[in-house]
């Protein structure tokens, strides 16, 4: 790409943001003709959105979802690293992990975990965590495995010559080296968790944004369905932009290399 440098031209911004304003106006015009339960207007949705700020109980649901997503992503990542570590320690496990475990986990339908989670455990937060972790685990394993695979053997040997403690070596040498892959994995898993694994809250929870969506759906509160969708977009975009993207840039795979 030769023309990505610098700020976008004024005309481009005008077209981009102008189209969005035009779309909102069209939405407003169409919504005026239709009943609120089919297509709520921008103002109705804004009112529902405001409840996330003014109403503590509604805001709490968004907070609960965010906490669950973060917890599941961290659990899945730790499990992914542990599995990759086991493969690293005993390469004979590679076929088992790649051709059995990974194939099984990545082909498993997400709603299957959701149903089984509720059948096996009761409706509770641990159930939600189980479902979400099961759904995003394959993405974490893939990235952790890729990270370990590109580890430089010579650097590892150097580490051995410096310390005999494997724990120390892991935290001082291995972890920083595989960090770019883990961060990339975290980003993917985080996105999948918000977009797909939220299904866990439709079945397995009595709080959270999924639960709120379900409620809004059953009472035909279309404005609230819209608002929940927008809140998810806002939370995901904000956390990705403020936290994960800087992390990914800090631990870029090409760090230190001329690009």
């Amino acid at each position, binding site marked *: 790409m030769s023309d990505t440098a610098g700020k976008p031209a004024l005309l481009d911004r005008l077209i981009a943001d102008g189209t969005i304003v035009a779309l909102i106006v069209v939405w407003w015009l169409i919504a005026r003709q239709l009943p609120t339960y089919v297509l709520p207007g921008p103002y109705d949705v804004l009112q529902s959105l405001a409840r996330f700020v003014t109403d503590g109980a509604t805001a709490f649901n968004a907070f609960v979802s965010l906490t669950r997503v973060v917890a599941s992503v961290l659990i899945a990542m730790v499990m992914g690293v542990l599995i990759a570590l086991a493969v690293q320690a005993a390469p004979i*496990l590679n076929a*088992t992990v790649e051709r059995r475990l990974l194939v099984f986990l990545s082909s498993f339908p*997400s709603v299957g975990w959701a149903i089984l989670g509720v059948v096996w455990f009761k409706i509770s937060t641990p159930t939600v965590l189980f479902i979400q972790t099961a759904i995003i685990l394959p993405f974490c394993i893939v990235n952790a495995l890729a990270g370990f695979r590109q580890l430089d053997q010579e650097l590892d040997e150097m580490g051995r010559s410096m310390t005999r403690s494997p724990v120390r070596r892991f935290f001082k040498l291995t972890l920083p080296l595989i960090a770019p892959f883990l961060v990339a994995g975290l980003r993917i898993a985080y996105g999948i968790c918000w*977009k797909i694994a939220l299904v866990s809250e439709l079945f397995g929870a009595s709080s959270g944004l999924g639960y709120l969506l379900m409620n809004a759906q059953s009472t035909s509160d279309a404005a609230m369905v819209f608002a929940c969708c927008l809140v*998810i*977009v806002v939370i995901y975009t904000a956390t990705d932009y403020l936290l994960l993207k800087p992390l990914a840039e800090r631990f870029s795979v090409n760090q230190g290399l001329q690009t």
Partner: protein
Amino acid sequence: MRAFIIQHLSRAWSSGTVLAHLFTVAFLLAWWGYSFIVPAYQLPGPGLVATRAIAFLQDSDEFAQLLLSLAHVSIAIAAAFVIGSLLAALAHYVRPLRLLIDGRLTPFLNAFSAIGWLFLAMLWFGLDSFTVIFAVTLILIPFTIINVRTGLQELDADLIELGRSLSRNPLQVGVRIVVPLLVPYLFASLRNSFGVSWKVVLTAELFGGSGGVGFLLNIARQQFDTETIFAIIGFILCFVAFSEIILFRPIQRHLDRSYGRV
């Protein structure tokens, strides 16, 4: 002869294949053993599930639902492929639209939840196949845009120039040079879509469909018919895993060979 067998076995052992098979057997045994301890509605044994799966395949009504799900997935993948590629091409070739698509539309679609699209579609279109296809398509579109867009950005400018010097017809340059160069990216986007669509389609059918195996899952769930749930999950598992092994991986290997740069 004995030496040959021993050598063969030891090679299979050190490559991990034996261990992988042992893992499968151990997994099935553990499942079978555990199914005696817990009630069948929680965990039916492998035998019960296999019986149910065979009955499922023999029942033409139920088998038709399996085909219906396949149709949902195929139509959604095709629609997302066409729409996503078009948007990516627009962003690449129509400069003024680039910021709108890359900077506004794609991030928005990418952040939108699958459940969100599903519930909106249910409000707009009611419970039918269109709702399912709509929801799955909209989930797949950002994945396709991102993949095709990457492909277009990585296009070798020298090769395009070579094409221009050979023909002035942009259509010919497009068909003969751009599309063949894009094949690995188009394939990656299809492979990705296939994986994601199966993850989402059952959810969509469960809540917003009037048919498909997701719909059957919902009935089974309400009746605590865990055997059917397991049988359906088993079908999806096998189908996705075998498509990956039989179809996608060999094509990927072929593409890696023919497009790999030395």
